[in-house]
């Protein structure tokens, strides 16, 4: 599913990385625990999280994750957006809960890692 389709499915908005919305992801992972993200070996996943602070961007940077979808209407701060841009990470946000977001994307074919 392309990131554009991700946004359509969750009525989301892109915050930065508009030029990368044609990128396609197959795998998703939803958590607020960054150490859990750091154990994942796959790179090209969509990280779905309600944790909106600088460490969520750092975690993506270290894990080679290039797309984050914030849930519950979380908005990243200007510092976070700057760090995301430096690392070519696409940031998106949706008003839906983590549960609903995960369901909608799973239903449309985004696969779990395990």
């Amino acid at each position: 599913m392309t990131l554009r389709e991700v946004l359509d499915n969750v009525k989301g908005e892109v915050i930065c990385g508009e030029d990368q919305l044609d990128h396609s992801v197959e795998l998703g992972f939803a958590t607020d625990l960054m150490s859990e993200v750091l154990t994942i070996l796959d790179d090209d996943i969509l990280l779905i999280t309600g944790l909106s602070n600088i460490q969520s961007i750092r975690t993506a940077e270290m894990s080679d994750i290039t797309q984050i979808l914030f849930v519950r209407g979380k908005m990243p701060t200007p510092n976070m957006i700057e760090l995301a841009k430096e690392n070519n990470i696409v940031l998106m946000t949706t008003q839906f809960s983590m549960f609903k977001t995960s369901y909608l994307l799973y239903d449309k074919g985004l696969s779990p890692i395990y």
Partner: protein
Amino acid sequence: MDKRYAIPSGDFTHAGQASSEIKRLLKQLNIPPKIIKRVVVSLYEAEVNVVAHSLGGEVLCSIDSEHIKITVSDRGPGIPDVGLAMSEGYSTASQEVREMGFGAGMGLPNMRNNSDEMDIKTSPEGTSIFMNISFKEN
């Protein structure tokens, strides 16, 4: 090549800066991406632990053509029971640390899984964690 970075205690905005610079450096050296990820994930977990659990410390990385040797040391209070700390799920993280997305008790086990060699020395005066990661893919 040696690289040294200070890690102030409690400063979460700072955690990850050493890892970020080492990542850039290893990319320039054309180290395979899978190995870079193992290095920076381990280093980042170690940095976060110093910020979250210690009185502050520093990172020393020694890089040659074959491996990176990382030593992360801090000024205390030490880890009372290393065996317990190494077990998955054990955490003494404060509420503040948990709000930052950490405190699952997965950092030390993940560092062990990602490094070829890991050694912990700890006393009330401080903890020193040594990790060695080979650049050879196997």
